């Protein structure tokens, strides 16, 4: 993974010093609430309903075991002994004191972490596939490009006060969007051209929130060396012309839609032509320097399987289920990527205790080159596990409560913190997730159902990605009461689509019943092996609507 040199270290520590000074000026009254707000947001600090919330960046989802231990330590020292994993490679602390945040930042800096631009109207953390580097289908490892973007966007002097937040995602797999790039402000699809050169297809103007839109392709092939200059042109056009009069119309997607993608592309091209061959054009040396930080670890030469492993699979059904559900194929023979599922009934989605973090760090050190990945579905992955170690990992994961074999199943929901924590939420999310987990706890039923994505957001900011779930649940406020609107047919993976609202919203205690009816319509209508999204696209909304709103006999 990327290692700081003296330059990086100095820049991050100078940032900590700057924020320490700003925090002191805030407490002494030299900075107003409004002035401090923007500064603290750009350092990851929100003030939430019950307490401040502090969001730490996990660039492209990678953490070393030492970093994981530091997060555990900070959660003990400054918080209530747990952290929350978000959908965009961030870790959140829910109960820190504002005055302690500079000390937390300084501690993070010593472990090469930061909270820079994890919030505010600036370029946020760049996200990608949690299995980057170990997936055999990827064109090339996307992480070096994410790191190059991270450095370019960090403290970018021109783009700290954009009209609105700005998120970039990178996907490297040709047939599957593993980073939801079409619902990002900029989505980069890594491709190879006919001469075998690496480049990007560039999408702009995707996004969720209250106006969900799928991004438009504005560049068929951007050579890799042109990455930063082209991004600079896109963001400059947005900084100049994005709306600033209405925060709900301020994202780049609104501008792209208003101008049309074609016109936006022309403006970018015109801007870009002025400096595309300037000093910010990447060099082969720089690309290689960054790539050198992401060379594969020292894999052993292994057989694809062993008699012992096969015997365990054959004799232990629970283990076999877990291997089938919670491990992912690895590009190196004899290895597997393991997802530790953090979601089970009774634990708010994405929450992990200090002791669990330390146990994850220990597992990473013992079995996976000391490295941990944070996944966009709010799970944690250990991506370099020898198949011969899977049984041992499974047993330890079970003890820790991380082995619920429900990856990508109905109960592996994406869920925002909701009204229990967030000042923006219209409704609570966590109790709805729990209601669904409790209702659908029969693994045989879940396996029969197959892969299905259920996403819950507590408001239309859509942090729980409800627009792109097969089933989306959105908390809404109805005359002061918490109601839930349900949408069907969203997807961020293949031919991305935004879910359609089924009809009038439901009271909280009805949600699991409604989900059950929707699933019944699906299982009655699906053909052999047909995914929910395909059944929905084939039969349409009508049968679902009819069942859900049918009058009781």
């Amino acid at each position, binding site marked *: 993974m990327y290692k700081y*040199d003296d*330059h990086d270290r*100095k*820049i991050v520590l*100078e*940032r900590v010093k*700057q924020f320490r000074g*700003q925090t002191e000026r805030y407490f002494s009254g*030299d*900075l107003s609430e409004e*002035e401090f707000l*923007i*500064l603290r947001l750009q350092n990851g600090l929100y003030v939430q309903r019950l307490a401040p919330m502090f969001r730490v960046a996990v660039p492209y989802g990678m953490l070393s075991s030492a970093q994981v231990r530091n997060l555990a330590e900070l959660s003990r020292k400054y918080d209530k002994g747990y952290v929350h994993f978000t959908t965009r490679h961030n870790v959140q602390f829910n109960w820190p004191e504002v005055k302690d945040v500079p000390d937390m930042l300084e501690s993070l800096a010593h472990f090469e972490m930061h909270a820079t631009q994890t919030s505010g*109207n600036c370029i946020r953390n760049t996200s990608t596939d949690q299995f980057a580097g170990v997936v055999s289908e990827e064109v090339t490892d996307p992480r070096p490009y994410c790191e190059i973007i991270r*450095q*370019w966007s*960090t*403290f*970018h*002097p*021109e*783009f*700290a*006060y*954009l009209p609105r937040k700005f998120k970039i995602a990178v996907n490297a797999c040709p047939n599957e969007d593993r980073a939801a790039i079409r619902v990002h402000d900029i989505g980069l699809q890594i491709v190879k051209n006919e001469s075998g050169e690496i480049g990007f297809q560039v999408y702009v103007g995707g996004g969720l929130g209250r106006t969900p839109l799928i991004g438009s392709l504005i560049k068929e092939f951007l050579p890799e060396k042109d990455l*930063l200059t082209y991004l600079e042109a896109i963001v*400059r056009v947005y*900084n*100049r012309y994005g709306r*600033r009069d209405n925060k709900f119309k301020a994202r780049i997607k609104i501008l792209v839609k208003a101008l049309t993608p074609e016109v936006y592309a022309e403006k970018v091209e015109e801007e870009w032509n*002025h*400096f595309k061959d*300037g*000093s*910010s054009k*990447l*060099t082969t040396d*720089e690309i290689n*320097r960054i790539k050198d930080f992401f060379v594969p670890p020292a894999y052993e030469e292994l057989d694809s399987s062993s008699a012992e492993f096969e015997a365990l699979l054959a004799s232990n059904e629970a283990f076999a289920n877990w291997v089938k559900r919670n491990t992912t194929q690895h590009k190196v023979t004899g290895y597997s990527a393991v997802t530790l599922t953090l979601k089970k009934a009774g634990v708010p989605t994405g929450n992990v205790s200090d002791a669990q973090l330390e146990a994850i760090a220990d597992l990473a050190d013992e079995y996976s080159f000391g490295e941990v990945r944070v996944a966009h579905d709010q799970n944690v992955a250990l991506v370099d596990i020898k198949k011969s170690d899977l049984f041992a990992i499974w047993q330890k994961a079970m003890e820790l409560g991380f082995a619920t074999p429900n990856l990508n199943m109905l109960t592996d929901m994406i869920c925002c913190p909701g009204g229990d924590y967030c000042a923006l939420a219209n409704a609570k999310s966590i109790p709805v997730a729990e209601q669904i987990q409790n209702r659908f706890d029969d693994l045989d039923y879940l396996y029969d159902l197959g892969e299905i994505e259920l996403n819950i957001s507590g408001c239309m900011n859509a942090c729980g990605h409800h627009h792109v779930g097969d089933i989306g649940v959105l908390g809404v406020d109805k005359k002061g009461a918490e109601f839930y609107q349900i949408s069907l047919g969203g997807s961020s993976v293949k031919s991305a689509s935004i879910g359609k609202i089924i009809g009038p919203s439901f009271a909280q205690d009805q949600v699991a019943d409604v989900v059950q009816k929707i699933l019944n319509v699906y299982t009655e209508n699906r053909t052999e092996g047909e995914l929910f999204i395909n059944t929905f696209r084939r039969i349409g909304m009508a049968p679902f609507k009819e069942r859900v709103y049918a009058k009781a006999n």
Partner: protein
Amino acid sequence: MQKLIKDGQIIDDSTVVLDSDFEGTLPSGALLVPLSFFKDNKASFENRSNVGVWIDSHEEPEELIEDLEKLPVIAINFPKFGDGRGYSYARLLRDRFNYKGELRAIGDVLQDQLFYMQRCGFNAFAVRADRDINCALTALTTFSSSYQAACDNPDPLFRRRS
């Protein structure tokens, strides 16, 4: 007298900034006139070396291209410090249009924005009158290095790393 940070020093400044709806006869002394007034009255500035133009965040720096060599000062107004358009305007004036005169930030100009403003090409800062300009001056040295190329350093860090 009002103060200004210019080229890293605090100096006295007697510049009068005329309102966007200014009409009538120009006062004597150093002035910043609004863009629309400047465009309508160019001839009257021919013999004045102490008159510059200010543009607002919704106006376009491209409007000044033909006059850059004659203008001793261009000011960019920040109606609110969170309105970041002025940063792009400054870079365009310096990088693209090669403007060499004074580039001044006016309006809601505060300590915590100065470092980025300087990187984008501003060399003068009319810090909001109710704030301590001596404190603000220290912000210009917040960071000793930066990742990106900008007006203060034509090369990005990746071309300078040893």
